[in-house]
């Protein structure tokens, strides 16, 4: 952490702003939760109804809401709005304090508004999420590694699967947009900070606030419904379900806040001369991702509010006995769910597109096609949600039109391939871990995309749906394509974010371990899916032994690779080689600022006169 200056905090606490940090937040959150819990226990009337959980559901949800409000107050999220209401808006000094000026390591534990601090905070929390999600994945695979299922109790197993699923989804949603969208993006467009710095801090701390209900859930019955939390199963699930509901609601707010902030920043704050034609492709990727999340996450939020109301207030949105429908939930969930997968994928691919010209020393091939591809995917991806519901019986007559829209997506998806191979072609390959990642993405995403076409075919999906084949498909896309891009981005921007080079040897070793392990794991998983193994099962027929064994072995290889990567992050951050200002000789703006980056990035705001891809020797 050498970029951090370590001056102590200025004179001890005068204003409330200076007193608040993660400790006050945790304390206030815990105290509020406890108080509300006691009060609810005392005063909420008992149930007259037959429902098993209703009163407990109310108590749990109320306590979780209290936690949330307490935590956000304790971290200082309300200071700004409150002061504004009182007519005493924050002074310049106070704003500088909030930005973390001269605060050293402490600023990472407060409501700090500097986008670089938020970026690092996001990076750390993403790594923590992947760490926990990874441990859960290893539990799943170990349980399935032994023939005839395992040693984990089915209730616990289901909960592990659900928790693994949802936190990995959240991890992949934030893995590019969080760390790199916050740290790198504003510098890349030549801005001093985000459009709304306080909203930026808000979006990060909301995720921390959201994490607690999810952990809480594990102690009150877990999330035994899988990440999709279908109703009516979710209505029947133990109290832990409320943790899922709160987690999603808070995370959805975080995503909406971040989305509004990032879109505004990109639209309004690009450097002088950075026309849309000169805006780097990575910026388009981030922009498309949050622009897709903006309509999608309110739907997710709503779907969970309704789920919570069914549990706690005995409404019947999804409860058939009361006139509701599980199909309503499925629709809401996938109206969010399909755009969401592209929220994950697009910025990861765009990051690799940004790196491709740098590591081939030639211009990006067909910038316009790249933009078109990103726009086309974004547009189509809101029209395909029911391909997750072909087999639900909801509307058999709509299967054909949804098959059409789904298969159409392969056209803009193909454009992304064209841009990447086009850029590699006749380039001068500079072999680095990000370069290898471009090839890995092309391989993995090809498999993910082609299997996606099988799945989009209704008759084939009648066999494949709900099987391990689907699980393998989306791991190829989320992990094989998405995470591969995010890891490359980590290595690529590490020098700018930490001031040190990422250890080259470790990045290569982990790359090969992760990629080989990954392909072994999920090719194995395709075979058991084809042989008829359903997903989310804790035990299976002996015909699936071999495939599952292979998959489990592959998973352990991934784990080793990830540990090597973690070691690489820690050791390079602490004692890696000092990075020059522009180690890759790249042409985007973030490489023009010094290490460590000054608080407001640029003394003089830059002016842009060309795109960032002017590599290659001019033709004679």
């Amino acid at each position, binding site marked *: 952490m050498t970029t951090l200056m370590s001056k102590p905090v200025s004179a001890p606490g005068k204003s409330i702003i200076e007193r608040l940090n993660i400790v006050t937040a945790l304390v206030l959150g815990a105290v509020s939760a406890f108080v509300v819990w006691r009060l609810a226990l005392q005063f909420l009337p008992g149930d007259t109804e037959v429902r098993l959980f209703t009163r407990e559901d109310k108590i749990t949800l109320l306590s979780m809401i209290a936690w949330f409000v307490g935590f956000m107050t304790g971290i200082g999220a309300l200071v700004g709005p409150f002061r504004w209401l009182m007519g005493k808006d924050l002074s310049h000094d106070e704003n500088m304090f909030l930005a973390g000026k001269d605060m050293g390591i402490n600023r990472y534990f407060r409501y700090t508004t500097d986008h670089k601090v938020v970026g690092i905070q996001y990076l750390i929390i993403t790594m923590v999420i992947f760490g926990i999600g990874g441990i859960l994945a290893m539990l799943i695979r170990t349980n399935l590694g032994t023939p005839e299922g395992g040693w984990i109790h089915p209730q616990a197993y289901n909960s592990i699967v659900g928790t693994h699923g949802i936190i990995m989804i959240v991890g992949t949603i934030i893995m590019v947009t969080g760390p790199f969208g916050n740290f790198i993006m504003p510098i890349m467009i030549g801005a001093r900070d985000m459009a709304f710095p306080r909203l930026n801090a808000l979006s990060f701390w909301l995720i921390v606030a959201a994490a607690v209900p999810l952990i809480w859930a594990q102690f009150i019955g877990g999330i035994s419904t899988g990440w999709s939390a279908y109703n009516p199963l979710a209505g029947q699930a133990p109290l832990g379900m409320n943790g899922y509901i709160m987690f999603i609601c808070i995370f959805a707010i975080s995503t909406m806040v971040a989305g509004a902030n990032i879109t505004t920043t990109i639209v309004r704050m690009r450097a002088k001369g950075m026309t849309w034609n000169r805006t780097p492709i990575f910026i388009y990727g981030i922009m498309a991702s949050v622009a897709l999340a903006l309509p999608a996450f309110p739907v997710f939020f709503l779907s969970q509010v309704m789920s919570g109301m069914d549990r706690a207030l005995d409404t019947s949105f999804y409860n058939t006995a009361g006139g509701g429908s599980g199909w309503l939930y499925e629709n809401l969930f996938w109206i969010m769910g399909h755009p969401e997968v592209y929220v994950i994928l697009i910025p990861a691919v765009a990051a690799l597109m940004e790196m491709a010209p740098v590591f081939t020393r030639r211009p990006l091939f067909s910038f316009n096609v790249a933009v078109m591809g990103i726009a086309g995917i974004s547009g189509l991806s809101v029209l395909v949600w029911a391909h997750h519901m072909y087999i639900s*019986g909801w509307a058999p007559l709509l299967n054909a039109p949804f098959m059409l829209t789904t298969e159409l997506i392969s056209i803009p998806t193909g454009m992304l391939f064209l841009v990447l*191979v*086009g850029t590699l072609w006749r380039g001068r*390959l500079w072999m680095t871990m990000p370069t290898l990642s471009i090839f890995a993405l092309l391989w993995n995403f090809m498999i993910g995309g082609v299997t996606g076409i099988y799945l989009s075919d209704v*008759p*084939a999906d009648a066999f494949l749906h709900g099987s391990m084949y689907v699980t393998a498909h989306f791991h190829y896309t989320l992990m094989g394509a998405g995470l591969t891009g995010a890891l490359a981005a980590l290595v690529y921007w590490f020098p700018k974010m930490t001031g040190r080079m990422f250890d080259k040897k470790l990045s290569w070793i982990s790359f090969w371990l992760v990629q080989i392990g990954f392909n072994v794991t999920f090719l194995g998983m395709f075979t058991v899916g084809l*042989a008829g193994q359903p997903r989310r099962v804790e035990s299976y027929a002996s015909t699936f032994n071999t495939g599952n064994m292979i998959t489990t072995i592959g998973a352990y290889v991934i784990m080793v690779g990830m540990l090597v990567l973690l070691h690489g992050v820690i050791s390079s951050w602490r004692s890696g080689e000092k990075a020059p200002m522009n180690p890759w000789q790249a042409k985007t703006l973030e490489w023009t600022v010094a290490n460590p980056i000054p608080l407001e990035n640029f003394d003089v705001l830059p002016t842009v006169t060309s795109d960032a891809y002017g590599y290659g*020797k001019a033709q004679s």
Partner: protein
Amino acid sequence: MTDLMNSKKPQWWKSPDVKKTAILWAVCTALVGYVGTEFHVRSIVEPASETMSGVIDLMRIFTWAAAPVAGLVFAMCLTVLTSKRHYGDNPPAEADHQISNSPRANAVWIVVSALLCLFALITGLIVLQKDSEAVLESTAIQMNVTGSQWVWSFDYPNGARSEDLYLPVDKPVVFHITSVDVKHSFWIVQMGIKMDANPGAITEAAVTPNKIGVFDVRCAELCGLLHAYMQTKVHVVSQSDYDKWVTEHAALEGRA
């Protein structure tokens, strides 16, 4: 891709890396097509209905249709990877061109992918149409299927009821599927049909078993604690064995 070369040189296809890629393309296409289909066909279950054979054929066709595209991408990657690579901490010399676009390559790529897309769509629609009509078949056995945590039960037209399914060979059957608690998914693995069992609604699926034998029914939608164990068998038997079996079982239910 091909006219990335300096457009003043007319015979771009004579350049060595284009030739190399062309050869690799042929090899990769064959490999992807062959390995891809074998991978699927060898892993997938033995079909016990036309529907399932259709699924397997679809996979063959789609894999071969995707093979040239995947093959081209892999071939270009291989060409690039086997040409001069630069290791080291400083960037290599700049590439010797500045070509940043090729309208012709873009157009070809987009048109080809649109055609492939159309092809996949039409193939799918034809099969889909056949499957949807099967549900309307009037001579079919009408079977009621009920999912509940965590068993399947089957009601036969004559009032018999069982927890493992008996079907006559070569006779169309239509399933009317529902659930009494949460959502389940009724999957006859080797027959390639699947349909969710929803509480409060009845959904339909149809198939004609074409092989005598014992096959698997599994629940394909997480339905709670014992989801993994919610499975049973389908016994496909001759028409006379079937008639005998349902009569006996209807009697057991006291409804004969």
